[in-house]
């Protein structure tokens, strides 16, 4: 088995010698994992998260980073905090400086970066969260979602391996939450390990690959989202609610639908289960499958996109990643989907309708992969077309090249 990035071993903690906040907690975080800590208020989620970058020191037990126990000397704490970035629940509490640029530069400056290296780190971080042009803005004039992005950029500028977010969506509206979750998806795709705490069960269920349920300072369940949420008793004890998809699936089984080896996680999965039960496979409309066109926005201009939309008579447009969303906003195109885009477009294709996904960089490959996987599992042949005029599907551009391409 691959060595875990972070590991908590029998960790216990009390605040100020008072009530116990954590009792004998053990868990490990594999590389490139997407983990959601789920539990009621006061279950100890934040306490546990604060231990992972050494902000709190366990009373008993230890935290290990790449197998090595954390040391609490000044220099090793700096190192662990650079490696394990922490985004606070309240962005206002995290944003220190009076302008966006200064705040994002805060970490890198303290790590000793200066001049060109510093500005390139800040520019890249702002680019990643989609906040170019916000450099001079003071944080108090930003919206909640924008503040959250500044907070995330401030951490990304230190290039952490692990990203911890305490309740990343608790203060955001649904659209804002989806944007942040899409951003996390993008960051995960770049190879970062991400841990969040939340009490939004739907979000944890659809996003995470491992869900950890907590109750009164203990871990009571840990596993795939389907497993963690399917035990009603545990969900009740953790003061949570069963996600709608899980509930729907349980009821469908009670109504006699055949069980599926994998717990469903999305609307697409549920549809597949129903169709497989009814027809032995996913049904297609009489006029066949629709296609999915993917366009790398970093290498297309406004005319190309508009022309493509016109030519192919695309009615459904999905935007994945902050880059694509910014471009569409600038060009006055309103995307239909900005979250769980691939699933929605697959559903559209099954209904015989074609759609266009605008995204950038490595996410283009991800679309192709996901659709290929779906095709294989369901014996379907939804076509993915690479929409860029200039190539035939090979993605070789690095993010840096995209940046310069954009500036020109």
């Amino acid at each position, binding site marked *: 088995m691959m060595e875990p990035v972070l590991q908590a071993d029998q960790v216990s903690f009390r605040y100020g010698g008072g009530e116990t906040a954590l009792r004998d907690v053990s868990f490990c975080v594999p590389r490139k994992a997407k983990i959601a800590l789920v539990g009621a208020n006061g279950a100890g989620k934040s306490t546990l998260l604060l231990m992972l970058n050494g902000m709190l020191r366990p009373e008993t037990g230890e935290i290990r980073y790449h197998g090595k126990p954390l040391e609490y000397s000044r220099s090793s704490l700096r190192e662990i905090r650079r490696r394990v970035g922490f985004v606070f629940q309240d962005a206002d509490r995290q944003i*220190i400086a009076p302008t966006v640029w200064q705040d994002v530069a805060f*970490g890198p400056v303290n790590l000793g970066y200066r001049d060109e290296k510093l500005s390139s780190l800040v520019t890249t971080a702002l680019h990643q969260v989609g906040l170019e042009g916000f450099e001079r803005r003071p944080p108090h004039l930003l919206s909640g979602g924008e503040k959250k992005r500044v907070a995330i950029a401030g951490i990304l500028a230190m290039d952490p391996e692990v990203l911890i977010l305490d309740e990343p969506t608790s203060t955001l509206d649904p659209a804002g939450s989806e944007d942040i979750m899409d951003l996390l998806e993008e960051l995960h795709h770049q190879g970062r390990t991400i841990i969040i705490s939340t009490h939004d069960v739907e979000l944890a269920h659809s996003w995470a690959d491992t869900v950890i349920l907590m109750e009164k300072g203990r871990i009571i369940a840990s596993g795939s989202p389907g497993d963690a949420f399917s035990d009603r008793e545990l969900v009740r004890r953790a003061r949570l609610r069963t996600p709608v998809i899980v509930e729907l699936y349980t009821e469908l089984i009670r109504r006699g639908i055949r069980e599926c080896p994998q717990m469903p996680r999305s609307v697409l999965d549920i549809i597949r289960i129903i169709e497989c039960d009814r027809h032995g496979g996913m049904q297609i409309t009489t006029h066949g499958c629709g296609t999915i066109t993917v366009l790398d926005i970093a290498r297309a201009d406004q005319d190309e996109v508009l022309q493509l939309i016109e030519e192919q008579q695309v009615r459904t447009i999905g935007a994945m990643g902050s880059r694509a969303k910014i471009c569409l906003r600038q060009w006055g195109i309103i995307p239909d989907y900005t979250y769980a885009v691939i699933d929605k477009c697959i559903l559209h294709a099954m209904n015989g309708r074609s759609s266009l996904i605008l995204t950038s960089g490595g996410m283009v490959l991800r679309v192709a992969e996901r659709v290929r996987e779906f095709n294989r599992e369901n014996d379907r042949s939804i076509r993915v077309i690479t929409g860029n005029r200039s190539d035939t599907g090979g993605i070789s551009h690095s993010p840096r090249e995209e940046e310069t391409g954009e500036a020109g």
Partner: protein
Amino acid sequence: MIEHLLDEHAQKSAISHISPRTKLLLGLGTLVITLIAGSILLPLIAAVSLSLVILCIARIPPGVYLRLLLIPAAFTLMSLLVILLLGGGGETLWEFSPSSALTLTITRESLSQAALIFSRVAGGVTSLLFISLTTPFTDIIRVLNQCRVPREITDLMAILYRNIFILLDQATQIHAAQVMRLGYSHPREATESFGMLCGSLFISSWNAGDDLLRAMDCRCYDGEFAQLTPSEPVRARSLLPVILYLSLLAGLALISATDMIPGAI
């Protein structure tokens, strides 16, 4: 809120691309000249011309600007009234005695003193408003940095500036919550509510301080605070008119000083 307003307009002003140093030179230069000039006319000229700059070049909405002017206007008028009626010497122009114990008079001297103060206030307020409406606070910090003000002071200014808005937000919320529960309906309750407001603000700023330390710690704080990249360069196109304008004002001040006795203060 007025504090949000000022900074927001400064961010959006049509001359935000001009170097903060040029703008500070114009604002502070005018301020100094209006304060040392002995003539009544000169500060008024400065006030009118800077107002034109604020409205026509920086494109600050007139309504906003007028509302901002009203704030100092209220207490200026009050103090002018006092100087006008109680200041004195010279020929009496107008007399009024509401009772035998009190006689209010306006004299030639008090009139000219009041006029001088009014014009200086007008000039001074306009120059300060010019600075705050066109130069974001962060730019001012940057200029201070370039002027070699110690880092400790400018860093502290930056943190204070950032936290003022958080504290204000909190104060507004607590105040609203109190008003909703009729906390300010009677003087007695109002005093009590205000005390509570101050108390909880103190506690929450104390906590905010703790949080700030934690946030800085979390981001590897090591005594360094990022400075904004160098500001826009000072350009001749904007600097020359400013110097021309200031020399003109200074010249006028010199001329008026020779044929007038400097202000009576």
